[in-house]
């Protein structure tokens, strides 16, 4: 079994002729929090979508290079199966509005056959909601609908839903970009606590969030990787001037 959850080599992505990612080579170790940071428009979301092949749904997308996730080339496996092991949480909270809070969390678990009995499912739902620190807030209203939750709670619900699928890798696309500070802190803390159970790959444009959360970071700017390494090193001793400018907020 490879020590790396994700291995990307010379990844180049073009969308309708425009080059979004150029020769990106990165490796993500298992059971770590890897944060890809960079200013808006640097190609971070595109990178994420290449890992779970959501890029397939983008019009005019061309992908060149090797992307290996959990030891397998992503283009040699069933994409739907891949996406159930590599689950993504979007920037915009998007719980299924027609399903109850309980059903939202239970659905992926049921579809992936993670829980076999009603009791197991109840326990899994509780576990997932506890991991995102939402259990105490919703335990008395699991039959309510998501529209009764605040934005931050909705995003935590989406995170719980992703966790209930028991993925091996969790992809997060700017998960707290539209969330208030209190919920942001809760989400960041949940992520730190989840490190032992899965690999987390997060994308953010906020260097401070990366500093708070990451084990390893990489800076993506203009579609190329400028610098990468253990978070401590990159934040205390950035090698590149571009990195320093990004950390100063000047990019």
């Amino acid at each position, binding site marked *: 079994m490879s020590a790396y959850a994700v291995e990307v080599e010379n990844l180049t992505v073009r969308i309708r002729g425009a080059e979004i990612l150029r020769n990106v080579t990165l490796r993500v170790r298992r059971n770590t929090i890897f944060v890809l940071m960079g200013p808006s428009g640097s190609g971070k979301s595109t990178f994420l979508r290449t890992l779970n092949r959501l890029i397939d749904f983008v019009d005019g997308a061309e992908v060149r290079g090797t992307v290996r996730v959990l030891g397998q080339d992503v283009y040699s496996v069933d994409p739907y199966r891949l996406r159930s092991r590599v689950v993504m949480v979007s920037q915009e909270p998007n719980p299924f509005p027609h399903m109850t809070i309980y059903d939202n969390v239970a659905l992926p678990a049921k579809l992936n056959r993670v829980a076999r009995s009603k009791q197991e499912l109840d326990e899994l739902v509780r576990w997932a909601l506890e991991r995102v620190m939402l259990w105490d807030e919703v335990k008395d209203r699991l039959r309510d609908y998501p529209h009764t939750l605040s934005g931050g709670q909705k995003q935590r619900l989406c995170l719980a839903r992703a966790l209930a699928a028991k993925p091996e890798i969790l992809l997060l696309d700017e998960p707290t970009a539209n969330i208030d500070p209190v919920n942001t802190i809760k989400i960041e803390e949940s992520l730190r606590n989840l490190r032992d159970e899965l690999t987390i790959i997060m994308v953010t444009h906020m260097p401070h969030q990366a500093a708070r959360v990451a084990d390893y970071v990489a800076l993506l700017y203009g579609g190329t990787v400028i610098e990468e390494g253990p978070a401590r090193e990159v934040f205390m*001793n950035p090698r590149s001037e571009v990195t*320093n400018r990004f950390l*100063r907020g000047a990019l």
Partner: protein
Amino acid sequence: MSSGREVGLAGLERNAKEMHKVTLGLLKRALSLIVAKDPEERERLLREIEDEVALLDVLKRSSTEAILVFTMRYQPLGRDFKWVHALLGVVYDMFRIGRYCREIAIADRYVSRLSDESLGDLKEVVELAIEAYENAYRAFFEGCSSCVDVVKEIDSKVDKLYLELLKEVGSVKVVPTTTVAKTLVLRHVERIVDHAVNIALSDP
């Protein structure tokens, strides 16, 4: 157009330079104390040293607060973070150097007049301290790497002088007050140069 962060950093640097001026002034007055013979001038110098040290105390407090507020507000990362963190230490070192100058003045006032003929070689020692401090300042604020070596050299020199004096004092049963004053001053200078080394090595 400078951002608030750049303005903040420039402000911190200005504060530190302000402190530097005062500290350097104190060192020069300490030197004058060794050279000046006129009692009125000596009295004036002692008073000035007291005043300047009080000012230094205020500057240290305000500089430290400014650094902490800047950190809280801008949460610097990368090289800025290291520089600001180092600056906290540099401000403290400058403050301590100033305090040691005061200690030298106290030794002059209560133990023995430092302008005494037998204490002539103290002039050289204090000049070394000033040289070390100026080089340390340039090493940190101007990035002069040769200055770091100069400071280190002075440090070993002063350490040696101090150690020799201690051995000398330890070898006799009775010590005259001038020797006591000399020992005290040399001790303070050794500490001053140590702090100068700290400043020089603080450059991230």
